[in-house]
């Protein structure tokens, strides 16, 4: 009985140590975490595209031969990894060459802050500042439903994106804008999308971030068509 007790205790210790190691070694983003206190200063976006490349809800020439549609939630950490890692790589490799356009759609589902962020971005889009706010939100993610995109912080991020705050303040209270964001989420569900980010390229659809080589191969194949 004593040996069993000792083995159970050791198992518990090993398990707890394993969990601690998992949390300690967790490769969090090397970018600084934005402050959650009142003196919050928004961080700059990872990708600042060249003039004229960010238009409407996308990145890249409007007549690019390949269009990649990305459904995201502003609170989703993997979407942050997409926006701050994969997307800048695609920008350098394809977008600047005029080969690819990346279109962004909202699939807000994680919580109220996701909807508030998407509404804020739609209002920035009305001022032709979609990308400016969209990219800053991903630079300023901090947990889910913990206030990273509270009204106060969203306004500060919008301000840092150069948004006309008077017009933006009015716009974000417009129920039609919110309804548009909710309609996007409903459309995502109808398409069978269950998570974010979800990528759509032609008739290919996949959730998560694919391996770079796989994604490049799909884009290259689409370019050859």
């Amino acid at each position, binding site marked *: *009985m004593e*040996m*069993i007790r*000792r*083995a*159970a205790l*050791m*198992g*518990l210790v*090993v*398990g*707890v140590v*394993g*969990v601690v*190691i*998992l949390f300690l*070694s*967790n*490769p*969090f983003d090397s970018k600084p975490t934005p402050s959650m206190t009142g003196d919050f200063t928004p961080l700059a976006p990872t990708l600042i595209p060249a003039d004229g490349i960010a238009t409407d809800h996308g990145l890249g020439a409007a007549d690019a031969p390949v269009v990649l549609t990305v459904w995201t939630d502003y609170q*989703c*950490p*993997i979407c942050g*990894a997409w926006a701050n890692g994969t997307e800048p790589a695609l920008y350098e490799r394809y977008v600047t060459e005029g080969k690819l356009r990346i279109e962004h759609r909202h699939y807000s589902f*994680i919580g109220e802050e996701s909807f508030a962020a998407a509404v804020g971005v739609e209002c920035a889009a009305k001022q032709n500042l979609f990308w400016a706010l969209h990219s800053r939100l991903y630079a300023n993610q901090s947990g*889910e439903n913990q206030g990273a995109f509270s009204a106060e912080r969203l306004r500060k991020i919008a301000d840092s994106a150069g948004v006309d705050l008077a017009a933006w303040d009015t716009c974000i209270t417009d129920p039609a804008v919110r309804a548009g964001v909710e309609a996007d989420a409903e459309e995502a569900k109808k398409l*069978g*999308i*269950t*998570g*974010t*980010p979800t990528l759509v390229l032609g008739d290919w*659809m*996949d*959730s*998560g*971030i*694919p*391996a770079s080589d796989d994604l490049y191969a799909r884009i290259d194949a689409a370019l050859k068509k």
Partner: protein
Amino acid sequence: MSRAHRIGITFSAVGVLISAFILGEKIGIFPEVCGPAWGPFGGCKTVEASQWSSIGPIPIAAIGLIGSLVLLVAAYVHGRTKREEALMLWLLAGIAGSAIEVALILIQALFIGEWCGKCLLYGATVLIGAAAAISASLAYARSTRA
């Protein structure tokens, strides 16, 4: 061989297969299985692409594979030989694996916000394997006390 041993061996073997498959997917040997067809449990790719799917350079699936192999071998050896050391190893690995699996399930719920069906199935094999190890240990304790 008792029913606890048979259950432990069966579920650990299934755990070995699932973790080997997930590892194969991760390193590109197998095609991705999962996605929208899995309904609410179709977030495998998001979970597997997340920062929680590895400890440093080591994929969690590789650790799971080793863990399930230990559970399988220990359950089998104890079932065949009744060696005490095998039972201790079975129990130790089962409890340690269960603690880590519970943490991984909570991480999917609280941090990632998506469910990976395959990962949950794997977690179930570990938890059932651990329950079998505890059952076998209690039976052993009763038999040595008698």
